């Protein structure tokens, strides 16, 4: 009985989310806010990716920024080559401006050899290549990292520390490899995404829809993924990996699969973020950013995909709003710190858990007044 209500409630939340996200341009007549919301929707995707690996697989990835950053850089390379200034650097083929900067005197003005490693950019002259790599590269890296970690049965906090060290390493390399990455300044001054001759201005309603539809699709796909048998088996490996092994499942392959899916989503999110914000920087590899994603997911509800996504969107929207009042600017981080400690202490299942408990209370109350026995409030159908 109560189970049905939870499933219905769950569906209602998804439906409401999708309807609101898709109808938003009709309500918000301000392209600036649309662009802002598009960015937060991308963060919502990141929260969702964390929930997928952390909530459902028990894998806390403190280096998710690695995959986000890789995705961002891949598309940014393509868009950089499309920018007007890249065509202006004294060659008939596009050359990113910073490469001239880093070029050795006398180096030919060509992507092949202007700086050491600049040849890596050659295929990115095709935009579709950058778009594809934005997902492929994070996925390949995640496959390699994931299979190493999980085949060796590294688990729990050690996964967190390895991923943390990895993202630090990536940050170091991206800053140091200036001839290829433009170092600390990152890739800026990008062209706009162009599909079928249409340029997608980040502040255009159409661009908003690219993001909005992507987020909805990823959300639904992830939801489908966790409700498949594979999703169920994954959750079993989180609870008791040994039991799963004795049932005949190769636990590592499930962990690698979902770790990789989560990384792929993060890479995709990185790509979308570049499309709406027009730049990629090594700060995507900052530890603070990766931990922020975990914070969003924890506040929203680590074991609810939509909860984690809403957590990310909510926190960022509030943050943007309070930053407009001088007094709050300083206090905001303090508040976020306090809220976060409280959530971990008293609301480990986050806002989604809270909503569920409230619904359970309501159900129990209505059943009691209806003269029936109140049932167990828990359900695992997420």
């Amino acid at each position: 009985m109560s189970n049905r209500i939870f499933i219905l409630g769950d569906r209602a939340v998804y439906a409401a989310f999708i309807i609101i996200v898709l109808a938003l341009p009709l309500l918000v007549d301000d392209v600036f806010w649309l662009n802002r919301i598009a960015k937060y929707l991308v963060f919502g995707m990141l929260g969702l990716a964390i929930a997928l690996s952390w909530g459902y697989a028990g894998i806390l990835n403190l280096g998710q920024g690695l995959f986000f950053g890789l995705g961002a850089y891949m598309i940014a390379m393509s868009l950089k080559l499309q920018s007007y200034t890249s065509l202006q650097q004294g060659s008939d083929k596009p050359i990113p401006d910073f490469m001239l900067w880093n070029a050795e005197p006398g180096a030919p003005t060509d992507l092949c050899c202007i700086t050491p490693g600049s040849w890596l950019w050659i295929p990115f002259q095709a935009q579709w290549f950058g778009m594809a790599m934005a997902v492929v590269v994070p996925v390949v890296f995640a496959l390699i990292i994931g299979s190493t970690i999980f085949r060796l049965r590294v688990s729990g906090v050690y996964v967190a520390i390895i991923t943390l060290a990895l993202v630090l390493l990536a940050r170091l390399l991206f800053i140091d490899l200036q001839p290829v990455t433009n170092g600390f300044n990152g890739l800026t001054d990008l062209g706009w995404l162009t599909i079928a001759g249409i340029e997608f201005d980040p502040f255009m309603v159409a661009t908003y829809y690219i993001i909005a539809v992507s987020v909805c699709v990823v959300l639904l796909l992830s939801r489908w993924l966790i409700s498949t048998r594979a999703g169920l088996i994954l959750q079993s490996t989180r609870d008791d990996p040994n039991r799963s092994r004795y049932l005949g499942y190769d636990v590592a392959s499930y962990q690698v699969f979902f770790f990789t899916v989560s990384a792929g989503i993060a890479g995709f999110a990185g790509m979308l973020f570049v499309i709406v914000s027009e730049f990629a920087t090594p700060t995507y590899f900052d530890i603070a950013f990766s931990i922020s994603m975990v914070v969003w997911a924890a506040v929203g509800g680590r074991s609810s995909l939509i909860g984690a996504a809403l957590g990310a969107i909510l926190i960022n929207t509030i943050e943007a709003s309070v930053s407009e009042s001088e007094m709050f600017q300083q206090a905001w981080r303090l508040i976020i710190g306090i809220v976060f400690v409280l959530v971990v202490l008293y609301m480990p299942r986050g806002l989604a858990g809270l909503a569920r408990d409230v619904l359970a209370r309501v159900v129990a109350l209505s059943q009691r007044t209806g003269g029936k026995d109140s049932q167990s409030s828990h359900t695992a159908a997420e």
Partner: protein
Amino acid sequence: MKAALTIEGLEVDFGGFKAVDSMTTVIDDGELRVILGPNGAGKTTLMDLISGKTAATGGKVHLFGRDITNRPEHEIARAGVGRKFQIPSVFRDLSVLQNLEVAVSHEPRVFRNLRLGMSRADRKRIDEVIDLTGLGAVLDTLAGDLSHGQMQWLELGMLITQQSKVILLDEPTAGMTQGETSKTADIILRLKGTHTILVVEHDMAFVRKIAEKVTVMHLGKLLAEGPMQTIEADPAVRDAYLGSGGLH
């Protein structure tokens, strides 16, 4: 009769200490075998060796003629060995029904499992197991919220759902009330014939209720093997048990 599990000269060496030493026994298909032995006799280690939790340093384990020695746990499980632990091991954050669904593991690969729902045959088998274990009333309860006995039955039910040909049970009645013990015995007896079952157990009343053939281990070695009555009369067995008060 066909042999389900053949153990040949199995041994494991923990840095000089042989917890299991040249152990040899054959368990027939459909047989219910009870393993007895005083504490430290190597019973649980034997199960660890069969199920792949611990790597053997010598000897072989064959399952229906196939060598499964030192394979990874999940491969041994896929080959048809199911195991129940002493401390109940179920997925505590999943509901009872979900636990049973996970146990339908004839298709272990990730990509083959990217589908919703399950086949009618699997559904039917789960229903049968629910009947057998009497968990029908608590299907939506989280496994972690079950009583101790229910948890044990659920684990047992998962092994049956898993369609293991050989089921290893490590003290299935530990910590159970008498009523629960007797229900467990009923479940095990109903499995006899269709499954090969290997039970480690201390509760002699329970053993007498279910046992046909008994293997006694002592200091990692095989001490005696045979029908319950013969074993109980065996003086060597009595000697081995003297330290722990004899068979009771």
